């Protein structure tokens, strides 16, 4: 069984106020072929907000890698990249 890509979305108040609400819709925006290969979970504060002033909320992570200023498009691209990298 193939390992799934793990996506964590910050559901903390800060990320939500800073534009993270649309990330709630990620699952339904995933292309069909990706749906079965991704696990999405919500998480309170991923810890990125205090680590680096240059990175801005909303935060999410794909297989542990930080995605700042996250949007649905950005996350889907990152998921695809992870899948590609997994092939090499």
């Amino acid at each position, binding site marked *: 069984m193939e390992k799934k890509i793990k996506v964590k979305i910050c*559901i903390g*108040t800060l990320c939500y106020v800073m534009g993270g*609400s649309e990330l709630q819709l990620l699952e339904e925006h995933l292309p069909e072929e990706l749906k079965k290969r991704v696990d999405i979970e919500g998480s309170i504060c991923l810890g990125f907000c205090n680590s680096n002033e240059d990175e801005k909320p909303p935060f999410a992570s794909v297989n542990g890698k930080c995605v700042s200023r996250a949007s649905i498009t950005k996350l889907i691209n990152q998921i695809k990249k992870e899948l590609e990298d997994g092939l090499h």
Partner: protein
Amino acid sequence: MGYTNGAMLIKREITNRFTKLYYEGKLETEIDKIPLIISPKMAKKPVRCCIYKEREVVNNRLISLLGIPITPTMDELMRPSDYIEIAKQREETPTCRLNIIDAACSSCSKEQHVVTNHCRGCVAQPCMLNCPKNAISFIDGKAEINADTCVNCGICRNVCPFHAIINTPVPCEQACPVDAISKDKYGIARLDEDKCIHCGKCITACPYGAVTQKSHLYDVMKSIDNGKKVIAMLAPAVIGQYNVDLEKIISGVKELGFFDVVEVAVGAEMTAAEEAHEWKERMEEGAKFMTTSCCPAYVELAEKHITDLKPFVSTTPSPMVLTDRWVKTTHPDAITVFVGPCVAKRSEAINKSDVKYVLNFEELGAMLISKGIELSEQSTEVDIAGAGPVGRGFAQSGGVAAAIKTAIPEGVNEIIINGLDKPNMRALKSMGKGKCDGNFVEVMVCTDGCVAGPSCIADIRVAKRQLAKYLNRN
């Protein structure tokens, strides 16, 4: 907010830093550092022309957050910290007038239609042949628009087979439904308070975030700190905003130090009952129709622009006003704070009610973040005064009409005005002349209703879904 908008995010970041410093007790000493943190010396790439301009804009935003008006004549030597004392001493509520931050306004050039280099000088030349003003000619095989005769009708843009003609609007002017914004002699946007209905569309439309409203944040936090009995009244639209159950929102807001937190949906149910009664009476008296009065921007529209509509507007007080009265029956000494998505509510609160302050969802969010209150971790064990779907439904287009029809199952023939676009403006004007196909008109100036208000933080699709969960609950 329909899409991610950098101008809005930076505003929110400044607000968050402002409240954080307040709670840390460092506002006086560190407020002037905020612009330097936002636009540091070695900034990789300033968005505006330079970091100094960016800092000036941030300074103005901070002054606005202190509830001080930004005017062209203000003393430029005053730093944000210099205004804190004024805010501290202030007893009265800052007014609702919207201000333009001159430094932020980009003086966008006048609206015009431009032929881009995608023009191929085709044989059809529909732009030239269909221009009603003969403003287009072909020079060296390319179309050219004569700006002096062009009236921006847009026909050329629509008929060009290559989409080679574009329209560059002035976003704030285009968004304003009542022509309250125009440019001064320097090209900077100016708002005419006599015309402004405080709908807030310009605030969201300006890509530079130049339109600002004086915040009541400082006054609210100060009142709580001074041990006053401050009661938060949450607008029905709050349900869709923070992605957690209402119980959690309420207990989170309580933790900010509010004496109590109530739902305005309770007042909305009183409004619905009273308005249904009023409608019945008016119909018996032979009135043609009645319109709602809960949307404050609409009420201002009827007062300032479509005065023919005024006699048709319901005189029933708004949910905010009735909630305020209800709160004050038990706490006559309370300072009430309306929390909502609306810009115009500030104007209603100040000019037409006993509500002392208004916060928006962004500002409430900033308070929660700065106090480290994580809403999803809040307790669900709170008492909610018991509003139902009828009151909570006021948050979205169609909700008020639905509430009236619940009260009066037969005879209500409703017309829903959802948003203030051009066709709806025309419809309202003709209603003022007595032409109305229904007998009850619900008007909301924001398309989709308050869930899509200018100060909402949640994506509209997410907000609507969350609200629907509550409306389907019994």
